[in-house]
C-alpha cells in the first residue's frame, strides 16, 4: 500500500546514516537503511532486541510492512509513542542517575550478546510511566574484541560529568547540558569539581585523567601509534563496572538536611486544602483532558489528582529539590502517567541544537489539554514583574484550558514577597486579572476556595 500522507522528518534525526525517525499521522516510524543491515541482523538474531524490549529497557518496535520503502531502506519500524519528550537538562538528579544506570545495563546486556552501544547520549533516554527507557534502535553495533568502548567519552560527558557536578557542586548544574548539546566538556567538569575528587580512583580516571588525555592525545601522529593497542573484554567490563559503581554511590547534594520537612507547609487550613483539591477534581471532570501540565507543581501533590485518573501529567517546578522528591515518590510507588521536570517558567527550555531544531522548546512540545497554575500567579506577577497579559499569553500558548488560582494581594504569601520591595503593583487586583485573562480565555467557572481569600478559575482558550 502506498501512503500518500506526508512524512514529517524528525529534525534531530540526522547524525546517523543508519536511518532516521519520521512521523506519519500519530505514529513514530524508524527507517533503517541497508548500511545498518549487518548490525540489525545481529541485534535481532542474537535475541538482544527482544530481550531489551522484554525487560522494558528499549521502546517497543514493530516492523511495518504497509509503508512503501525507498531504495536503500531495509525495514521500517513503528515505535511505541513517547507521551512527552523531555531532556536531560530538565531532569532531577535521580532521573539523570537512573537514565545513566539504564544505559549501562543496556551496554552490559549488549556485550553479553556480542554487541556494544556506539551511542550513549542522554537524549536516547526518555521517561515513560516514571521509568527511563532507551529509544534508539540504531545505537547498537557488533562488538569487536579488543576495541575500546567508542561511546565512553560521550557517556562521561552526558552522564558522569553532569552527575558529579550535581552531586558535588550544585544540583542545578545539569543545566550546562543546555549549553553543551554534546555533553559537558570534561575539561570543564574537571575544573569545576572539588580538588578532593582527585583522591577517588574512578573520578580521577573517568574525569580528570580523561580530560587531560583528550587534550594531550589530540595529536594525529599519536593516533596511528596507538591504533594497535587492544582493550580486553574483561578490562572493558571493568570500566563499565567502575562507571556503574561510581554512579550508584553518588548522592544528591552534600547533605540531606532539608528533606524532612520540605514544603510541608501551605497557606491553607487542612479543610481548605481538601476543598481546593475537590475543586480541581471537579474542574478536571468538566474538561476530561488527556494531558495536563502542572506548572509550578512543587512535589506534585495536585498533579496526582490528574495522573491518578490516568491523565498524562507533566509536573514541572523551578526547585530541583521538589522535583527530586517528586521523582523519588513516583519511583517508590511505581506511579504512572506522571513526569516531574525542573523548569524555570521565567526562562523555559528553548529550542536548541542545529538550526534550533534538535531539541524542542517547552512551548513547541505543547499545547496540553489543561494547564494547572496553582499558587503561582503571585510568583510570576510580583517576583518577576510579569503583567497579567503576558502570563495569560504564555498560558494560552501552552494549554487549551486553564485551572488557575488567583492569590490576592492581602494574602500572607504575597505580603511576604512584597516585604522587601516597593509595591509597584497597582494593577495586581482580581478585577485586572479577570480583565486581562478574559481577552484570551473564557471564564467557565469561578469559585472562592472555602476558608481562604483565594479563587480558583476554570478557563477555556478562546
Amino acid at each position: 500500500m502506498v501512503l500518500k500522507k506526508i512524512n514529517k522528518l524528525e529534525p534531530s534525526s540526522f547524525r546517523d546514516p543508519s536511518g532516521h525517525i519520521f512521523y506519519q499521522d500519530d505514529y513514530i516510524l524508524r527507517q533503517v537503511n541497508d548500511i545498518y543491515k549487518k548490525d540489525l541482523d545481529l541485534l535481532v538474531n542474537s535475541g538482544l532486541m527482544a530481550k531489551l524490549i522484554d525487560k522494558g529497557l528499549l521502546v517497543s518496535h514493530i516492523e511495518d510492512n504497509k509503508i512503501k520503502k525507498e531504495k536503500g531502506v531495509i525495514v521500517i519500524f513503528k515505535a511505541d509513542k513517547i507521551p512527552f519528550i523531555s531532556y536531560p537538562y530538565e531532569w532531577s538528579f535521580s532521573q539523570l542517575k537512573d537514565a545513566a544506570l539504564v544505559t549501562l545495563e543496556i551496554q552490559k546486556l549488549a556485550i553479553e550478546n556480542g554487541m556494544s552501544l556506539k551511542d550513549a547520549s542522554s537524549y536516547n533516554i526518555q521517561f515513560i510511566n516514571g521509568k527511563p527507557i532507551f529509544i534508539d534502535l540504531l545505537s547498537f553495533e557488533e562488538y569487536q574484541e579488543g576495541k575500546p568502548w567508542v561511546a565512553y567519552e560521550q557517556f562521561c560527558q552526558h552522564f558522569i560529568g553532569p552527575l558529579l557536578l550535581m552531586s558535588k557542586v550544585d544540583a542545578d548544574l545539569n543545566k550546562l547540558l543546555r549549553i553543551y548539546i554534546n555533553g559537558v566538556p570534561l575539561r570543564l567538569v574537571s575544573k569545576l569539581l572539588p580538588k578532593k575528587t582527585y583522591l577517588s580512583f574512578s573520578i580521577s580516571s573517568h574525569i580528570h585523567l580523561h580530560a587531560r588525555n583528550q587534550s594531550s592525545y589530540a595529536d594525529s601522529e599519536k593516533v596511528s601509534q596507538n591504533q594497535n593497542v587492544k582493550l580486553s573484554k574483561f578490562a572493558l567490563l571493568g570500566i563499565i563496572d567502575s562507571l556503574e559503581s561510581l554512579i550508584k554511590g553518588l548522592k544528591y547534594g552534600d547533605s540531606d538536611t532539608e528533606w524532612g520537612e520540605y514544603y510541608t507547609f501551605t497557606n491553607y487550613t487542612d479543610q481548605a486544602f481538601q476543598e481546593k483539591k475537590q475543586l480541581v477534581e471537579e474542574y478536571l471532570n468538566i474538561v476530561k483532558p488527556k494531558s495536563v501540565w502542572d506548572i509550578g507543581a512543587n512535589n506534585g501533590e495536585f498533579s496526582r489528582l490528574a495522573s491518578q485518573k490516568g491523565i498524562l501529567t507533566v509536573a514541572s517546578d523551578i526547585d530541583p529539590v521538589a522535583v527530586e522528591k517528586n521523582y523519588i515518590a513516583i519511583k517508590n510507588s511505581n506511579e504512572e502517567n506522571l513526569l516531574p521536570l525542573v523548569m524555570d517558567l521565567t526562562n523555559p527550555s528553548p529550542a536548541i541544537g542545529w538550526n534550533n531544531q534538535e531539541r524542542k522548546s517547552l512551548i513547541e512540545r505543547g499545547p496540553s489539554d489543561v494547564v494547572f497554575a496553582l499558587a503561582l500567579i503571585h510568583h510570576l506577577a510580583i517576583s518577576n514583574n510579569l503583567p497579567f497579559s503576558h502570563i495569560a499569553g504564555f498560558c494560552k500558548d501552552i494549554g487549551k484550558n486553564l485551572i488557575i488560582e488567583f492569590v490576592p494581594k492581602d494574602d500572607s504569601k504575597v505580603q511576604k514577597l512584597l516585604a522587601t520591595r516597593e509595591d509597584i503593583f497597582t494593577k495586581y487586583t482580581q478585577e485586572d486579572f479577570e480583565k486581562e485573562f478574559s481577552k484570551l480565555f473564557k471564564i467557565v467557572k469561578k469559585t472562592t476556595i472555602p476558608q481562604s481569600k483565594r479563587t480558583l478559575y476554570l478557563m477555556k482558550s478562546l
Partner: protein
Amino acid sequence: MIHIIFFLFVFLIVAPIKAQAYLDPGTGSYITQMLIGFIAGSAYLIKIYWGQLKEFIAKLKDKKKKDGAKKNK
C-alpha cells in the same frame, strides 16, 4: 592506600597538557580506557571472584549446619 597510589599515578601521567587546534578527543578517550582498563579489569575480576568465594563459603557453612542438624536428630 590504593587512592594515594592512584593519586600519584594520575599526576605522573597527566602533566603537561597540550592544547591543539585540531582536537581529536576520541583518541584521548581510547587512551584513558587503555590506561585504566588494567586496574578496572582487575578490580572487576576480584569483585567477581570475591562474590563467588563468599557464595561458596556461605554454601559450605550452610551444608555444615544442615549436616550438624541431621546428626543431632
